Protein backbone atom coordinates (compact mmCIF):
# COMPACT_ATOMS: atom_id res chain seq x y z
CA UNK A 1 0.00 0.00 0.00
CA UNK A 2 2.99 2.27 0.48
CA UNK A 3 3.72 1.43 -3.12
CA UNK A 4 0.25 2.45 -4.33
CA UNK A 5 0.48 5.75 -2.47
CA UNK A 6 3.99 6.47 -3.70
CA UNK A 7 3.10 5.67 -7.31
CA UNK A 8 0.19 8.11 -7.04
CA UNK A 9 2.56 10.72 -5.64
CA UNK A 10 5.14 10.13 -8.36
CA UNK A 11 2.52 10.44 -11.11
CA UNK A 12 1.30 13.67 -9.52
CA UNK A 13 4.88 14.93 -9.51
CA UNK A 14 5.03 14.29 -13.24
CA UNK A 15 1.73 16.17 -13.70
CA UNK A 16 3.06 19.08 -11.67
CA UNK A 17 6.21 19.10 -13.76
CA UNK A 18 4.10 19.15 -16.91
CA UNK A 19 2.25 22.19 -15.53
CA UNK A 20 5.57 23.84 -14.73
CA UNK A 21 6.85 23.30 -18.25
CA UNK A 22 3.62 24.28 -20.00
CA UNK A 23 3.01 27.47 -18.07
CA UNK A 24 1.39 29.50 -19.55
CA UNK A 25 1.87 32.25 -16.92
CA UNK A 26 4.81 32.36 -14.54
CA UNK A 27 2.39 31.92 -11.61
CA UNK A 28 1.36 28.53 -12.92
CA UNK A 29 4.99 27.58 -12.67
CA UNK A 30 5.32 28.86 -9.12
CA UNK A 31 2.17 26.90 -8.25
CA UNK A 32 3.73 23.79 -9.78
CA UNK A 33 6.92 24.30 -7.75
CA UNK A 34 4.90 24.53 -4.56
CA UNK A 35 2.88 21.44 -5.46
CA UNK A 36 6.06 19.59 -6.27
CA UNK A 37 7.39 20.58 -2.87
CA UNK A 38 4.46 19.13 -0.91
CA UNK A 39 4.57 15.99 -3.05
CA UNK A 40 8.26 15.65 -2.22
CA UNK A 41 7.45 15.86 1.49
CA UNK A 42 4.93 13.04 1.08
CA UNK A 43 7.25 10.94 -1.07
CA UNK A 44 10.12 11.29 1.38
CA UNK A 45 7.90 10.26 4.31
CA UNK A 46 6.57 7.24 2.44
CA UNK A 47 10.03 6.14 1.27
CA UNK A 48 11.43 6.53 4.80
CA UNK A 49 8.90 3.88 5.84
CA UNK A 50 9.48 1.76 2.76
CA UNK A 51 13.16 1.67 3.68
CA UNK A 52 12.25 0.89 7.28
CA UNK A 53 14.23 3.84 8.62
CA UNK A 54 11.68 6.26 10.04
CA UNK A 55 14.44 8.31 11.68
CA UNK A 56 14.97 9.90 8.27
CA UNK A 57 11.70 11.83 8.55
CA UNK A 58 13.89 14.82 9.45
CA UNK A 59 14.22 15.46 5.75
CA UNK A 60 10.51 15.70 5.13
CA UNK A 61 10.23 17.90 8.20
CA UNK A 62 12.88 20.25 6.81
CA UNK A 63 10.95 20.61 3.56
CA UNK A 64 7.65 21.06 5.38
CA UNK A 65 9.19 23.95 7.31
CA UNK A 66 11.07 25.87 4.64
CA UNK A 67 9.51 25.02 1.31
CA UNK A 68 7.13 28.00 1.33
CA UNK A 69 9.93 30.54 1.70
CA UNK A 70 10.44 30.40 -2.05
CA UNK A 71 6.83 31.41 -2.73
CA UNK A 72 7.05 34.28 -0.23
CA UNK A 73 10.21 35.42 -2.04
CA UNK A 74 8.23 35.37 -5.31
CA UNK A 75 5.54 37.57 -3.74
CA UNK A 76 8.20 40.05 -2.58
CA UNK A 77 9.85 39.98 -6.01
CA UNK A 78 6.59 40.71 -7.83
CA UNK A 79 5.67 43.38 -5.30
CA UNK A 80 8.99 45.19 -5.65
CA UNK A 81 8.73 44.83 -9.39
CA UNK A 82 5.28 46.40 -9.44
CA UNK A 83 6.52 49.24 -7.21
CA UNK A 84 9.53 49.99 -9.36
CA UNK A 85 7.72 49.86 -12.67
CA UNK A 86 4.66 51.86 -11.73
CA UNK A 87 5.53 55.12 -13.39
CA UNK A 88 2.52 57.41 -13.86
CA UNK A 89 0.96 57.29 -17.28
CA UNK A 90 2.58 54.01 -18.11
CA UNK A 91 0.12 51.33 -18.92
CA UNK A 92 0.09 48.45 -21.26
Amino acid sequence: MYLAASVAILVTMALALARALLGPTVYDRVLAVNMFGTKTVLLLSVIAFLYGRPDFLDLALAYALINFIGVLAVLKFVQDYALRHQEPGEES
Partner: protein
Amino acid sequence: MEFLGLYNYWVFAVLLMTGMYAVISRTNLIKKLIGMTIFQAAVFLLYISMDKVEGGTAPIIQADLPGQLYSNPLPQVLILTAIVVGIATLSLGLAIVVRISEAYGTIEEDEIREMDGE
Protein backbone atom coordinates in the same frame (compact mmCIF):
# COMPACT_ATOMS: atom_id res chain seq x y z
CA MET B 1 17.24 -5.01 -15.30
CA GLU B 2 20.87 -5.07 -16.35
CA PHE B 3 20.72 -1.84 -18.32
CA LEU B 4 19.06 -0.01 -15.41
CA GLY B 5 22.33 -0.37 -13.53
CA LEU B 6 23.84 2.20 -15.85
CA TYR B 7 20.84 4.51 -16.09
CA ASN B 8 22.18 6.82 -13.38
CA TYR B 9 25.39 7.30 -15.33
CA TRP B 10 23.52 8.04 -18.54
CA VAL B 11 21.44 10.64 -16.77
CA PHE B 12 24.72 12.01 -15.43
CA ALA B 13 26.09 12.30 -18.97
CA VAL B 14 22.97 14.01 -20.31
CA LEU B 15 22.72 16.43 -17.37
CA LEU B 16 26.42 17.24 -17.59
CA MET B 17 26.11 18.14 -21.23
CA THR B 18 22.82 20.00 -20.77
CA GLY B 19 24.58 22.24 -18.28
CA MET B 20 27.57 22.52 -20.58
CA TYR B 21 25.31 23.50 -23.48
CA ALA B 22 23.81 26.32 -21.41
CA VAL B 23 27.26 27.55 -20.50
CA ILE B 24 28.74 27.56 -23.99
CA SER B 25 25.79 28.49 -26.17
CA ARG B 26 23.84 31.08 -24.17
CA THR B 27 24.98 34.66 -24.00
CA ASN B 28 23.02 35.56 -20.88
CA LEU B 29 25.33 35.48 -17.87
CA ILE B 30 22.71 34.37 -15.32
CA LYS B 31 21.66 31.57 -17.67
CA LYS B 32 25.28 30.52 -17.85
CA LEU B 33 25.44 30.38 -14.06
CA ILE B 34 22.25 28.31 -13.90
CA GLY B 35 23.80 26.00 -16.50
CA MET B 36 26.80 25.72 -14.24
CA THR B 37 24.63 24.62 -11.33
CA ILE B 38 23.11 21.89 -13.55
CA PHE B 39 26.63 20.80 -14.47
CA GLN B 40 27.49 20.74 -10.78
CA ALA B 41 24.36 18.75 -9.94
CA ALA B 42 25.36 16.17 -12.54
CA VAL B 43 28.69 15.67 -10.80
CA PHE B 44 26.88 15.33 -7.46
CA LEU B 45 24.68 12.67 -9.03
CA LEU B 46 27.72 10.75 -10.31
CA TYR B 47 29.33 10.63 -6.88
CA ILE B 48 26.15 9.70 -5.05
CA SER B 49 25.36 7.00 -7.62
CA MET B 50 28.72 5.43 -6.88
CA ASP B 51 28.04 5.21 -3.14
CA LYS B 52 25.00 2.94 -3.37
CA VAL B 53 25.43 -0.67 -2.27
CA GLU B 54 22.68 -3.13 -3.14
CA GLY B 55 20.83 -4.10 0.03
CA GLY B 56 22.63 -1.39 1.96
CA THR B 57 21.16 1.50 3.88
CA ALA B 58 22.32 5.01 4.74
CA PRO B 59 25.63 4.92 6.66
CA ILE B 60 24.16 5.68 10.06
CA ILE B 61 25.06 2.64 12.09
CA GLN B 62 22.18 0.84 13.76
CA ALA B 63 23.60 -0.89 16.82
CA ASP B 64 20.57 -3.18 17.13
CA LEU B 65 21.12 -4.61 13.64
CA PRO B 66 24.58 -6.21 13.46
CA GLY B 67 25.68 -7.36 10.05
CA GLN B 68 23.61 -4.71 8.26
CA LEU B 69 25.18 -3.54 5.01
CA TYR B 70 25.83 0.20 4.65
CA SER B 71 26.37 2.38 1.61
CA ASN B 72 29.69 4.10 1.12
CA PRO B 73 29.90 7.21 3.32
CA LEU B 74 32.91 8.81 1.65
CA PRO B 75 31.28 10.24 -1.52
CA GLN B 76 28.48 11.57 0.67
CA VAL B 77 30.96 13.59 2.73
CA LEU B 78 32.49 15.08 -0.40
CA ILE B 79 29.14 16.02 -1.93
CA LEU B 80 27.63 17.29 1.31
CA THR B 81 30.29 19.98 1.57
CA ALA B 82 30.27 20.57 -2.18
CA ILE B 83 26.58 21.52 -2.14
CA VAL B 84 27.13 24.33 0.35
CA VAL B 85 30.31 25.42 -1.42
CA GLY B 86 28.26 25.36 -4.64
CA ILE B 87 25.67 27.83 -3.35
CA ALA B 88 28.44 30.08 -1.99
CA THR B 89 30.29 30.16 -5.31
CA LEU B 90 27.00 30.62 -7.18
CA SER B 91 26.27 33.72 -5.15
CA LEU B 92 29.78 35.02 -5.77
CA GLY B 93 29.12 34.60 -9.50
CA LEU B 94 25.75 36.33 -9.15
CA ALA B 95 27.43 39.21 -7.31
CA ILE B 96 29.88 39.64 -10.19
CA VAL B 97 26.97 39.56 -12.67
CA VAL B 98 25.18 42.25 -10.67
CA ARG B 99 28.26 44.48 -10.84
CA ILE B 100 28.59 43.85 -14.58
CA SER B 101 24.94 44.74 -15.03
CA GLU B 102 25.45 47.99 -13.14
CA ALA B 103 28.52 48.91 -15.15
CA TYR B 104 27.27 47.95 -18.62
CA GLY B 105 23.48 47.99 -18.28
CA THR B 106 23.21 44.52 -19.75
CA ILE B 107 24.04 40.94 -18.86
CA GLU B 108 24.28 39.67 -22.41
CA GLU B 109 27.79 38.60 -23.19
CA ASP B 110 27.87 39.73 -26.84
CA GLU B 111 26.58 43.22 -26.00
CA ILE B 112 29.24 43.57 -23.33
CA ARG B 113 31.86 42.59 -25.90
CA GLU B 114 30.56 45.18 -28.34
CA MET B 115 30.78 47.89 -25.69
CA ASP B 116 34.33 46.90 -24.96
CA GLY B 117 35.03 47.63 -28.63
CA GLU B 118 36.16 44.23 -29.67
